[in-house]
Each structure stands twice: as C-alpha cells, then as structure tokens.
C-alpha cells in the first residue's frame, strides 16, 4: 500500500457510480508524478471531469481510493486538501461581486495571510497571468473579456501557491486566437512554476501541446497513457480517430 515514490496523485482501483448504479468510472488506476502535466483526454461523457473532481473530493469514489501526496483523500482534512490543490474550470466561476483583486485574494485571506503579503501576492500572480495589477485589480468580472476572466481564474487558482493544479477545460470556451495565445503562455508558465497539473481536455491539439503525458479515457475506462510522441505515432484503433481529426485540421491549414 506504499505510494510509489514521486507520485503526487494516485488512483487505486477507483470506481465511481451514480445513484442508479450506472458506472461513470470503472477500475481506474493512474499515477501522476511530481511536476508533470497529465492531460485527461476523451470525448464527452468519458469520465474526465469525474476523475478530476475525485481528486479534490467534489466527488467521492464508490470504490477504491484516490491518494494525494500518498494519503487517501478520505483521510485528508477536506478544506486542507482543497487549498492544497488549485482548481480552474471552463466557466471560471469568478465571484461577480468581487473585483479581480478580491477574487484572487480569496483563499490567501481565508488562510489569514497578512495584508501586505496578500497584496504583493495578488500583484505577483496577476503579473504571471499577464494582467497588470495597475490596470485590472479594481475591475469587476463583468468588465473583462472571456480570455481575461480565464486568466483571473488561473491567477485565483495559483494565489495560495498550491503544488497541484486541477484544470477542467479552462480554455474551452475561448475563441481560437485567444485560446492559442493563452495556451502558449500557459506552456511557458508550466516550466516556470513546476506545478503538478491534471488538465482535462477534449482537444487533441491542446493535449499534444501541453501534456507531458496523455491519459486517454473512453466511456469511464482508461484506455492507456501515452507521451505526446507515442500518441502521434500510435497505430492503436482507439487513438486513430483522434489523430485523424487532428490531421484533418492540419490538412485544411496546409491546403
């Protein structure tokens, strides 16, 4: 039962069923090592988001266990666990009555950081996500574009400096140009910040661009884990459709 050394997150025989007994996830085994970015790739309903929510215990496994830093999430203090793990979602969920600054400062404040520490950290993370404090700190979410909201969401997730980051299609709702821009920046950030990241996506290009490894999920089962190179070169029948879709996109570009 010892955690494999270096795995920050582990799924051990995890099943997740909804009340009626329908399985959304079956016998998932997965280990994520420190500093890597694991992409959870799959179609809608494949169990990507479910897997993600099992990590911060927004969902509780029906069977098996999820371990974070070697400890089952059932043994973690729930609030400590969630503050140990940053969380960014597609809809962002910015607090509409708070300014950008207040949104980002939420968890540091709840953690009772000193006022100076909070405000310097807010400036720092806003800088990291490319929104200079001077211009954006006092704005409300409804005064931001979609891309800017997403950046604030990321800054908020980074604010208390959690070693783990969970991201659920954070760039999914952005226009293609903004998405490409934000993906590029995010790639640089990954190297700079050294976080362990679990990233849900249905976009093959995004998975190949950002992932150190790609976990392919199909109707609640893990089909396999691949490096981007393995994924591109694979002859697997399940991977082919993804690569075909990806290549069609590229051919259109080259034509």
């Amino acid at each position, binding site marked *: 039962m010892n955690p494999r050394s270096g795995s920050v997150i582990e799924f051990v025989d995890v099943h997740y069923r909804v009340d009626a007994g329908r399985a959304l996830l079956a016998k998932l085994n997965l280990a994520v090592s420190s500093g890597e970015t694991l992409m959870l790739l799959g179609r809608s309903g494949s169990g990507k988001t479910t897997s993600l*929510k099992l990590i*911060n215990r*927004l969902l509780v496994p029906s069977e098996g266990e999820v371990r974070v830093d070697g400890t089952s999430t059932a043994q973690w203090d729930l*609030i*400590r*666990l*969630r*503050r140990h793990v*940053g*969380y960014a*979602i597609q*809809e*962002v*969920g*910015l*607090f*509409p*009555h708070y300014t950008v600054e207040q949104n980002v400062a*939420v*968890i540091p404040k*709840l953690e009772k950081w000193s006022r100076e520490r909070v405000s310097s950290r807010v400036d720092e993370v806003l800088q990291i996500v490319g929104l200079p404090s001077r211009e954006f700190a006092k704005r*409300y979410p*409804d005064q931001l574009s979609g891309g800017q909201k997403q950046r604030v*969401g990321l800054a*908020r*997730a980074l604010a208390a400096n959690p070693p783990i980051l*969970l991201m659920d299609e954070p760039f999914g709702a952005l226009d293609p140009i903004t998405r490409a821009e934000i993906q590029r920046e995010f790639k640089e950030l990954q190297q700079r910040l050294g976080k362990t990241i679990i990233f849900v996506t249905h976009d093959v290009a995004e998975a190949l661009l950002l992932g150190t490894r790609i976990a392919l999920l199909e109707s609640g089962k893990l089909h396999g884990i691949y490096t981007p190179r393995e994924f591109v070169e694979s002859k697997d029948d399940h991977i082919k459709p993804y690569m075909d879709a990806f290549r069609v996109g590229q051919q259109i570009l080259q034509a």
Partner: protein
Amino acid sequence: MLEFFVRHRREIATLTGEHLWLVSVSMALAIAIGVPLGILLTRRPGWKAVVLGTNNVIQTIPSLALFGLLLPLPWLGVRADRLTIAALTLYALLPIVRNTYVGISGVDAPVREAAVGMGMTSGDLLRHIELPLAAPVILAGVRVSTVITIGVATIAAAIGAGGLGEFIFRGLAMVDNHVILAGAIPAALMALLADFALGLVQRFVQRRAH
C-alpha cells in the same frame, strides 16, 4: 378634512407610533427567523415542501381568524400587542423565507463550484458568496413583507392592540369617513415610504452585488 387631521394630530401621531412599533418588532422577528429558515432550506432541500407549505397555509388564514386562533395560547394570548406581533410575524415570514431560499439557490452553479472546489467551508461560502449575491432578492422579500405587514397591522385594533386601525374601526362604527381616512391615509403613506426607502436600499445592495 384637513381641519379634522389638524385637530386630531396628537392622536394620529400616537397611533402612528404604535403602528410603527408593531410593524418594526414584527419585521425584526420575521427577518431574524425567516432568513435563517431560508438558509436552512438551501442546506436541507427535503424540508422545503413542509416549511414553504406551512407558510403558504398561514398566508391563507384570514388575519382576523389568525388573531382568534392565537388567542387561547398561554403567554401570547394574554396581551394584545404580543398576539398581534406573533400574527404579523407569521404573515411576514413567507416572502422572506422564500426569497432567501430562491436568492441563494440562484447563485450560479460554477460560482458555487469554484468556491467549494478551492476550499471554502460552508460558512465561508454563505458569508462571502451566497448572502452577498442573494441580498437583493432577500431584500425584495423584506420589502414585500413590510408593505403587507403595515396593511395587516390595521386589523390589530380589532383586538385592542392599537395602531392606526383604531381610527378605521372607530370610523366604521361611526360611519364617518373622516375618521376612517385619519387611519387609512397615514397607513398608506407609511407603506409607500417604507417601500420607497427599502427600494433605495435594495438598489444600493444590487449595485454592489451586480
């Protein structure tokens, strides 16, 4: 008419004061009970049918009958003002409970998910997110309740609890419209003023919670 008001200004002032007191105490109680009850419903949705159902039933009891029904109760029935306040509080409850529940339930799901996912406790969520965002809706409920209560409080005079209803009942007995209006006009003005003032508060809160 005007002359009548001037002549009775003392009594009008006294009864307006009584009326205001009955309404204020009842509203304070209704808010103190209604908001927590509404919050409770968001945490225990199973209780919704029972609580809102009971409240609905109370609303359908005619006010005079409700006074009568509460009369035999030991501590309440002894004094007319207690009885009135209890009845007014019961009437004022429903819009507050319902709006608190609706306001909090109306907080966007992603907002709630983000808050919980990033490690807010249930109390943090309530204090920092749900209540501030629901405040305009809760206040709308308080506003409706207040206006209703100011109206219903005129019936309190029927059981001798005072208030502007005194004039109305006296006027009815004397078949004197001047006397009726001496109760009805200040009550109507009070309702309008309260509605206007709470409307301002609501707009202020709304701007902050936009």
